[in-house]
């Protein structure tokens, strides 16, 4: 197992390097210019100077190697300094975003809690809703509960979040005026009133995302339960006189959860990626909004850093899902 994990980690290094090069080249080849949307009242000579100040005067490979060095050497060093109060990274150039002219990692760190609370909570809620629905739907297949569950998950699947989000805003924000339509990122939860306020402003974005996540996971759960319910060991368990509750919740559920857990693990990087559309609709201004703004303004260092972090997370969680699978299912062994 350990051997296998090590081999996979080593293999991930060239994969990630290749991914970073592809992202960089894609950004380089895409049309558009970081100074594209500066006002036209700025004369071209000054535009050129600004371009040089951003470091765009150098060849692409120089900038790529510089980025690699900053990402893998300067930023970790800086993080080390921050934690231990040392000064190794002093004077070194960190990854600077074109848009804000500030270190990209600082902005990401500032945005992360926002995204984790809203998107993370919606993922947890989605799982909590999906698993019971999946179990009941499978156990009572084609019952009215299963039909309604299927209908809701189809709705959750097929309605895009930009639609459900706007509908919720119009109903609860504008018509009924129960909930705020704009998320206040500066709100600090210090007492009951601010907690209530936080819950109110999170209600709509979390609902929208939870519905979407629950739809997917409940379908997996249902399918996996159905597979297992038909297995011989279930019949044996029943024949041995085990209680129905024990048969379903102990034997069937445990075995059915194996593929679902991996699905959940594979979905986790998306939590960090933020929810680009939902964040935009509710003005949550987390990592998703950061990425889309950076793409729109051709902020190459920021897009590069964010997408590469996502790539690392995806590779890491794929590995974790594989390892979990081995841990949970004794039939699967990697050595």
């Amino acid at each position, binding site marked *: 197992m350990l051997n296998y994990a090590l081999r996979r980690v080593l293999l991930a290094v060239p994969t990630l390097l290749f991914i970073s090069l592809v992202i960089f080249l894609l950004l380089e080849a895409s049309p*558009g210019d970081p100074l594209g949307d500066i006002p036209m009242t*700025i*004369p071209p000579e000054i535009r050129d100077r600004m371009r040089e100040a951003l470091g765009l005067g150098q060849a692409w490979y120089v900038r790529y190697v510089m980025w690699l060095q900053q990402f893998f050497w300067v930023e970790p060093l800086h993080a080390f300094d921050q934690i231990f109060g040392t000064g190794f990274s002093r004077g070194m*150039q960190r990854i600077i975003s074109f*848009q804000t002219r500030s270190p990209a990692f600082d902005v990401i760190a500032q*945005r992360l809690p926002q995204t984790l609370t809203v998107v993370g909570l919606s993922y947890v809620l989605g799982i909590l809703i999906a698993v019971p629905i999946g179990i009941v739907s499978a156990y009572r297949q084609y019952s009215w509960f299963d039909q309604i569950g299927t209908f809701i998950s189809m709705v959750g699947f097929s309605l895009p979040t930009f639609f459900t989000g706007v509908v919720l805003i119009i109903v609860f924000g504008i018509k009924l005026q129960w909930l705020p*339509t704009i998320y*206040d990122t*500066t709100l600090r939860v210090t007492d009951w009133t601010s907690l209530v306020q936080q819950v109110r402003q999170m209600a709509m974005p979390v609902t929208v995302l939870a519905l979407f996540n629950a739809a997917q996971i409940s379908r997996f759960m249902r399918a996996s339960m159905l597979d297992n319910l038909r297995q011989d060991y279930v019949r044996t368990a029943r024949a041995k006189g085990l209680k129905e509750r024990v048969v379903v919740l102990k034997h069937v559920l445990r075995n059915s959860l194996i593929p679902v857990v991996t699905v959940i693990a594979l979905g986790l990087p998306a939590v960090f990626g933020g929810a680009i559309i939902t964040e935009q609709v509710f003005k949550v*201004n987390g990592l998703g909004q950061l990425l889309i703004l950076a793409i729109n303004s051709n902020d190459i260092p920021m897009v590069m850093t964010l997408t590469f972090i996502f790539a690392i997370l995806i590779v890491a969680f794929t590995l974790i899902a594989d390892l979990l699978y081995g841990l949970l299912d004794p039939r699967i062994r990697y050595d």
Partner: protein
Amino acid sequence: MRLKTLMLGAAASVALAPSAFAERGSDGQVNIIYWQAPSTLNPYLSSGTKDLEASSLVIEPLAGFDEKGVVFPRLAAEIPSVENGGISQDLKSVTWKLKPGLKWSDGTPLTSEDVKFTADYCMNPEGGCAQLARYEGIDSIETPDPLTVVIHFREPRPNPFTAFTGAQSPVLQKAQFGKCVGSGASACTAENFGPIGTGPFRVVEFRTNDSVTLEANPNYRDPEKPAFAKAVLKGGGDAAAAARAVLETGEFDYAWNTLVPPDALKGMAAAGKGKIVTGFGTLVERIEMNLTDPSPDLPEGERATARHPHPILSDERVRRALSMAIDRTLLTEIGFGDAGRPTCNLVPAPETFASDNTGCLEQDIEGAKKLLDEAGWAPGADGIRQKDGKPLELLFQSSVNPIRQDFQALIKQWWQEIGVATELKSVDPSVFFGGDAGSPDTFQRFYADVEMYANNFDGTDPEPYLARYTCEKAPGPESQWQGENVNRYCDPEYDRLIVELGKTADIGQRADLAKRLNDMITKDSMTIVPLVDRGRVSAHSNRLGGVILNTWDSELWNVADWTRVK
């Protein structure tokens, strides 16, 4: 007796004060929404309007522009002029006097050293200063005493109100930014995100591309202002959501640039929670005519250069006919509603500089057809006019933008009516306006026959704007396709008048010259065909008082005077 009057006076002012003036910080919090979130609070590192306007809450220039475009003092004691001796007779130097006793929000005094430092900061060749144009032509800056700044220009400068005037060139604190000069500019994140200023508010927390939290500046020069103790400027979302948050839900007090289709905006305003405010500046949506031949048959290096005049559009009658076929009133209604007005001028404002040119407002299809007949373009079999076997076909490009595509479709129809075939093309805005010398699709390179976009000028003086159309400013292969005279218009008389404008200080004479230049390039030669004068629309809640929309400076220019309407 003396004491008694004094006491009476004091008693009276105590009694009257609460009713007449709001006290500093008495009105709670003001919520402002900018759907484009500010990225930094240092306008020298970013030229985005959102950044400029957010920073204008905190840092201030020596003088600003009011809602009529008139220069008024902010940090300066008075506006320098030739009469009061502030501007030298030869127009080569200007002397600013600071108001005495001004303090930064950290309590230290503001001096002329800070002003000089700001200019040095921006003029540093390695800093990549976005507002360098404001400081161009400055030879040296002297600070004879802590309250006096003398700026010397290399050439006579009839309009010296560029440096330190308007939200684009506020004064930075030397003590804070001293180590951020040149290439160090972007390493100073804390400074760029939290500049110490003299304005009505100071920064509490800046979250880049998200929100700014501010509080009243305890050292603001007017002890009664600002009325709000706290201000939050939130960014993100889109214009419609911002308008809704003010007009329908009332969560915010002020929404910037609520550029929403006119009908939708009226629907939101019907909820009765807020008002829409409109102001007109100098932003003109126009069609530019290419006077050079963009044909791909010509070799690169000669294509679209002055060596090859345009085979169709070189004829002034064709350009005029194209303009006459357009119904500007309809375009304005469809595209901008109350936020636009039809115009025939390149310089539609300020009033002093605007020509009384209204000849283009009436659509005249028949007249256009007659002109084309005269020019020798005879109707062909398929309805498209021809001359010497060549059809009258044009390539019409613009940037991707729903309103522009509507305009393109309408104009294509009108041109079809007069027998002109039009091929439409739309380019991604970041490419079109990107200025990449290697791209064939930039508006500067103009590899098309006509193109449409909008442009405006900074401040209130149109001289630099009009000076863009001199012969030497034509973009071409030699200049890496940089330059503002995208039409490659070239008229020696125009160049001569520009030089004359540069030497004229009298405002009346300047206005006359500017009008003549405007007319030469619009109604006389039809090189630029203006369509719509685009205004600025913003929305404010009925509970917010004191809002005066200003298109010449930051929209938040008088935030110190805003109050809560009870």
